[in-house]
């Protein structure tokens, strides 16, 4: 079973990192950087304002970037019939969804955390704030990945599923945003802990909700 999961994870990673020839893992990261770059243009280059708001901007940019790849997470494999073939081989949808969450996080979070370096430079954030942001992203992105895959499973097979997925994800990600961005304020350790807790909860629920959604989509 471990061999099978390793094979599926390897394939998932290849698909998510290199894309299916319709945009790769790089797009959300570029989008993230573009949002971080736009902010100083919009509010002006005042360093105090940027330093105060910059952490929150990075979190919002991360959240928006997380919405971009949603339609590539579950829908293509459902259309291809791959989920049916896995089912026939006795591989449960829950397992596939859990692996997809891991693969999505691996393809999405480390590049995002790397991109947070130039983004924080664009916003003129001090070093200690940058360390804080990286920690909060580490705590919050697993939850974003789990939520993304779950919503992608729920909306797979629906007409206009991609737009609906974004609309559903953003409000449900509000706790992650509050705790993640909140941890950047002074004495934000509890925010960090709560962001990690929200992540853990989404990771624990995601495979079951996503698996049930895929079985229901199959009809």
């Amino acid at each position, binding site marked *: 079973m471990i061999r099978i999961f390793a094979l*599926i994870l390897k*394939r998932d990673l290849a698909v998510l990192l290199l*894309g*299916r*020839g319709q945009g790769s893992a790089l797009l959300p990261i570029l989008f993230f950087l573009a949002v971080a770059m736009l902010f100083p243009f919009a509010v002006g280059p005042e360093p105090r304002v940027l330093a105060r708001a910059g952490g929150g901007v990075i979190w919002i940019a991360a959240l928006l970037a997380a919405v971009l790849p949603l339609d590539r997470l579950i829908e293509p494999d459902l259309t*291809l019939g791959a989920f049916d073939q896995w089912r*026939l*081989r006795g591989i449960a949808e829950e397992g596939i969804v859990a692996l997809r969450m891991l693969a999505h996080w691996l393809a999405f979070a480390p590049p995002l955390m790397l991109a947070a370096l130039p983004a924080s430079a664009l916003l003129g954030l001090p070093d200690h704030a940058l360390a804080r942001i990286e920690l909060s992203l580490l705590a919050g992105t697993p939850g974003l990945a789990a939520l993304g895959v779950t919503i992608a499973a729920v909306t797979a097979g629906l007409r206009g599923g991609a737009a609906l997925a974004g609309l559903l994800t953003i409000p449900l990600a509000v706790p992650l945003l509050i705790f993640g961005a909140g941890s950047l304020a002074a004495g934000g350790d509890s925010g960090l802990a709560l962001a990690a807790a929200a992540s853990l909860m989404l990771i624990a629920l995601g495979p079951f909700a996503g698996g049930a959604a895929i079985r229901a989509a199959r*009809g």
Partner: protein
Amino acid sequence: MQASPPRLLAQALACRRGERVLFAGLGLELGPGEALHVRGANGIGKSSLLRLLAGLARPEAGQVIRQGAIGLVDERPALDPHLPLGRALGFWAALDGGKSIAAAARLGLGELLDVPVRYLSSGQRKRAALARLITQPAMIWLLDEPLNGLDAAAADLAARLAAERCATGGICVIASHQPFALAGMATLDLAGFAP
């Protein structure tokens, strides 16, 4: 794999799509070496019956008992369109512990292993799906319109593969509106079970 002989049993099966009952009171029993041709007009529920037999859909009424692993070929080959055929088949072969190269050669796809799946014709894709099927250690084959897009030679080959599966103690259920050349095959006409 050979622990217990394969068996496929359906009792009082009913299937509904939306508001419409497609068929009801359908029963069948298949044992080692047996084959069944499911016939009927378009939309009568051939594919739905196969999905019920595979356990991919829940019947409106009745039950399906299956002993043995199921292999399914339908209109979706489950091969990543952006990957070269060899690697797309290799993924499933690795999962199933089989050899994809030999299977691809058997289906006459040896020349196409470097071609991305999206550039294959529908007949070539169907052959690729059959190559995926023969690497899979499944004793029960469910083939949904296996001849669609296949030329005469490939259709002969598909029939031979099904005959081999039956000769080695397997079960084949073929849903097709076309004639399928398989000796000793029973026929089930779904029109007889429409409400």
